[in-house]
């Protein structure tokens, strides 16, 4: 049986278990390289679990299926997290996690469309995903498709002017098929986002730009699922954004307590420790 069949037949797996498995796979990839954006991956795992196992419509064995909801990874450096979700969803074979970041791997450290099935765009030059999502949403509307376009972006990307150009355009064109997901982990490269360039009050900004906006705890699965449901059900044809407040390194307590940085240092011997710490929190 193929990986995709296996994954899609496991309907009795809870979202909590999905999120846990995404975290575990991300840690296994981090261990391969001895590095990776693991803090971000652990933080966003609940959102990805809700996306891939509750909200999105896709076919694991046909990642280019025309009717799929599009999921754009604007934050290319979060690739380690999306690879884990794509493996959990059966779109990528789990065995490949051992190639993460290696020469000739399909899983480069920054997400790129030409390398990886299920990776819709080449992200990494930050502030580009939302604009591309607008074009796809316009295109899908022209094609009378029911599909949604999701764009996962970061709080750091709120600094880019292109984000706010896109925010205006999406509202102007009444893109009700566009759902923007913002990971508000209060971190960017040089330090805490709120101290580098504060985007607050962030909900008021999106609302003023004409968006339906929600802000929830991105590590509370019920709240995350509820926000996805609400976003999809908004009656008015306006673009929707969900701000997820997330905690970097979530699920591995000793890393959560560490001084958090954009690139969380994990020593060579700590990957195994992190995996066993995660194991302790394994959902029943």
């Amino acid at each position, binding site marked *: 049986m193929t990986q995709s069949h296996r994954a899609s037949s496991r309907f009795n797996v809870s979202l909590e278990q999905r999120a846990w498995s995404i975290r575990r796979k991300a840690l296994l990839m981090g*261990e*391969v*390289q*001895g*590095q990776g954006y693991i803090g971000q991956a652990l933080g966003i795992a609940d959102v990805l679990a809700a996306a891939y196992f509750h909200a999105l419509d896709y076919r694991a064995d046909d990642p280019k299926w025309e009717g799929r909801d599009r999921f754009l990874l604007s934050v*290319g*450096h979060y690739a380690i997290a999306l690879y884990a979700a794509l493996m959990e969803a059966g779109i990528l*074979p789990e*065995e*490949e996690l*051992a*190639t993460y*970041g*290696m*020469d*000739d*791997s*399909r899983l*480069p*450290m*920054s997400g*790129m469309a*030409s*390398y*990886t*099935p299920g990776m819709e765009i*080449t*992200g*990494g*030059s*930050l*502030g580009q995903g939302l604009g591309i999502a607008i074009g796809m949403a316009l295109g899908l509307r022209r094609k009378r498709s029911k599909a949604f376009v999701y764009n996962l972006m970061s709080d*750091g*990307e709120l*600094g*880019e*002017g292109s984000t706010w150009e896109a925010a205006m355009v999406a509202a102007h064109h009444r893109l009700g098929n566009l759902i923007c997901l913002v990971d508000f982990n209060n971190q*960017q*490269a*040089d330090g805490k986002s709120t101290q*580098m*360039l504060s985007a607050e009050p962030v909900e008021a900004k999106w609302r003023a730009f004409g968006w339906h906006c929600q802000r929830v705890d991105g590590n509370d699965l019920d709240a995350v699922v509820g926000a996805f449901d609400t976003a999809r059900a908004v009656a008015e044809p306006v673009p929707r954004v969900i701000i997820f407040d997330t905690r970097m390194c979530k699920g591995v307590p000793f890393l959560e307590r560490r001084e958090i940085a954009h690139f969380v240092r994990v020593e*060579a011997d700590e990957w195994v420790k992190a995996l066993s710490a995660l194991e302790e929190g394994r959902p029943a």
Partner: protein
Amino acid sequence: MTEASRARKHEPRKAPVTAGGKGPTTSAMIASLTAEGYETIHAPFGHALVELARRDERIVGLTADLGKYTDLHVFAEAMPGRFYQMGMAEAVLMSAAAGLAREGFMPFATTYAVFAARRAYDFIAMAIAEENLPVRIVCALPGLTTGYGPSHQATEDLAIFRGLPNLTIVDPCDAVDIAQMVPAIAAHDGPVYCRLLRGRVPVVLTRHKPDYRFELGRAQMIRDGRDVLVIATGLMTMRALDAAVKLAQDGIGVAVLHVPTIKPLDRATILEEAGKCGRLVVTAENHTVVGGLGEAVATTLLTAGVTPAFRMIGLPDAFLEAGALPTLHDMYGISTDRVAAQIRAWL
């Protein structure tokens, strides 16, 4: 990228036999340059800027969320009141630097080379270059100095910026160049774009030529040789020097002319050296062969009627792969071994 190579990349991969990446096979953003045998200095740009700023009140520093990654954090920590964090907003970084310059300050603005060259280009062109304002744009990850993939590989920044009037362009080779370039560009009254090597940066030039000193606008012979003249810039001067040492063991004499200032180009020195008859002339740059040093030198030679045998070493006209930096430098012909091999094959 062609459709064929896209399809190839999408085929499943087997796990490598030696998983457990303690080796260098990583497409990480921050990778160290292989510079075997050279001593290194930490953050030469940051320290030189602090030293200069102690003497010159007008100096201010700005970054777009990359202070830690462009060595500007050294300045930010030493002079917090003169440092401006703009957030990840490269366009306003450049506009604001222009505004500070208008008010008489001497801004040093840092980001990665890709984001200056690609995202912020129009802001640099109109707010800074057209007005000939003294803004110094200092950018890490020039050319192929990260294995992270095209989003961070500034393989065409020189081509982009060479077309911009008024702009001086510097591609330093090592920590010596970087430390000495800081006061030199501050003394220059106009906009400057500098490529930056950051973190632990090797000391190369004074090893090969103890009395070497950086001079803005000047190309300098670092070593002489009778068979080949390599005209090199930036990181590739180091590669050329290392290759020259190797080739000397086989009795091949390789001269290396270091051209840290790409624009304005030191045409006189290039013509003088390239005109010495009989030598194969090779350009070497950490940049696409389109629109960089190689084409600038070729134009210089042809228009002056100097026509030696001529070859170019540089990156191909393509979006490059992600991977470990040493692998990529070998793959694209800019490692020391590949430089030496190419020169040998051309003789």
